[in-house]
């Protein structure tokens, strides 16, 4: 809470640029990215493929390293933050180990971080409940549906109780109906835990429905074209998507995406 009180951003990017050196010459994945994310924010990054949204998320997680500017996570460099286990990361695919049960998979980060055994058991039980997978702990991943596997991978990211949750198109591979249910569940989980969430998506309704802050990005070079502070209340039933406010925000996101694209096709 002290971070919110002092107004210090959890994620703070100033003029961040990232250039990949490839055989075909340098690729500017990110350029001049400025962004502040406060504690408890739900930030979505939206844009066409190649706009650097995933690269930016990976840079926050210290999986990529910016070549320009300054990026801070909890006031530290991303690598320091990673070493202090400041965030949980959810990938596009669930990536559960086939040789571990669901509970075993969720236990993995806890084992690596050296939590004592009874504490591991308690946490596994708690997060299984949080993602509504009670009773599935002893199952193997292949016995679960895609949506349930992704929920298990969210539970795995939550297990060690990092303040930040970074999610890279976690529901991209799932069908619309499952996606809606998981979006609702994610909002509930966010309300319960008060975590700061960074969420990459290319679905406009998903971004508008979930976020307190929507970051619209465009490609070549990857940059931010618009940052929208959502006026929607934190409590959001699914039918909020039919409200005039929701449609107005979605319209602005679409305009932002179109503006970023205009010179390219």
């Amino acid at each position: 809470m002290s971070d919110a009180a002092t107004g210090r951003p959890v994620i703070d990017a100033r003029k961040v640029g990232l250039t990949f050196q490839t055989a075909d010459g340098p690729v500017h994945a990110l350029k001049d990215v400025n962004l502040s994310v406060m504690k408890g924010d739900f930030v979505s990054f939206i844009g066409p493929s190649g706009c650097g949204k995933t690269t930016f998320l990976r840079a926050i997680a210290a999986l990529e390293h910016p070549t320009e500017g300054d990026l801070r996570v909890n006031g530290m460099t991303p690598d320091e933050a990673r070493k202090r286990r400041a965030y949980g990361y959810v990938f596009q695919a669930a990536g559960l180990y086939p040789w571990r049960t669901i509970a075993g998979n969720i236990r993995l980060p806890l084992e690596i971080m050296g939590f004592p055994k009874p504490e591991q058991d308690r946490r596994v039980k708690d997060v299984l409940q949080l993602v509504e997978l009670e009773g599935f702990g002893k199952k193997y991943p292949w016995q679960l549906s895609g949506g349930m596997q992704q929920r298990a991978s969210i539970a795995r990211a939550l297990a060690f109780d990092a303040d930040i949750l970074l999610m890279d198109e976690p529901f991209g591979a799932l069908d619309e109906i499952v996606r809606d249910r998981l979006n609702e569940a994610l909002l509930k989980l966010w309300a319960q835990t008060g975590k700061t969430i960074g969420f990459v998506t290319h679905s406009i309704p998903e971004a508008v429905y979930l976020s307190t802050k929507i970051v619209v990005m465009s490609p070549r070079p990857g940059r931010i074209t618009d940052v929208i502070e959502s006026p929607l209340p934190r409590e959001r039933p699914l039918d909020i998507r039919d409200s005039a406010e929701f449609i107005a925000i979605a319209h602005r996101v679409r305009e932002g995406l179109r503006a970023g694209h205009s010179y390219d096709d």
Partner: protein
Amino acid sequence: MRSILPVLTVVAVIVALWYAAAVAMNATWVRDQAARAGTEVSFQELVPRTLAQDRPVLPAPHQVAKGLWDGWAGQAVTSRRSLVYHAWITLSATLVGFGIGTGLGILLAVGIIHNRAMDQSVMPWAIASQTIPILAIAPMIIVVMNSIGVSGLLPKAIISAYLSFFPVVVGMVTGLRSPDRMQLDLLSTYNASRSQTFWKLRLPASMPYLFASLKVGIAASLVGAIVGELPTGAVAGLGARLLQGSYYGQTIQIWAALFTAAIVAAALVGIVGAVQAVVLKRMGMAR
């Protein structure tokens, strides 16, 4: 029943072809004998004589079966004429060699994936080692080992290990590298150490690859042990039976020893397969 019929059909065809080949290949000797005696042989007389020779060019299936039966059940297992005795001599060298080869192969693979210098230096040597004909290098290993006072089982086991470490290295390197970028990134977000990454991700992920290699490796071990017996003066073991058989033209003995080797190999591969099934099932990787 539906699956056994095609299998039996194939076996029957092979046996029939084998009999036909035996008649054709052994006929020359029968005709020569007849010519020497100044007689003619009709086809009806020829066929039984081709299938009942003491030293046929190609023994008929029933002769090999009888040779196998005599070797396995007709002798005390400690007898020098017992195939059980010779199979055990070869099997013991095979198992020791397989153990050494598997251990060495896993160690090399672990080194190769963790150390860039080893990756670039060990693999070419491992590949080069397999391009040398084993028949050429086996006598040298025996001679070198003998000169430092090591003989008996160990030199054979080393030749056996020489053949079996290679598939294990190749399989384990592939297996330990099988986790994809995302899996490795995930562990990086946990700030996992290299040893944690190895024990929790790379090693379990490599298990299916390990077992595939072990099946190749154990069969190669057996070949290595048999080849290792050839230059030792053919004292004991399946290799010795093969060599003695060829010295004295005992083709039935050769074939009986060959079949024994094949049966032992099949049993060993079967055992590895059974262990694989149990291990993967307990790991939850078999469905």
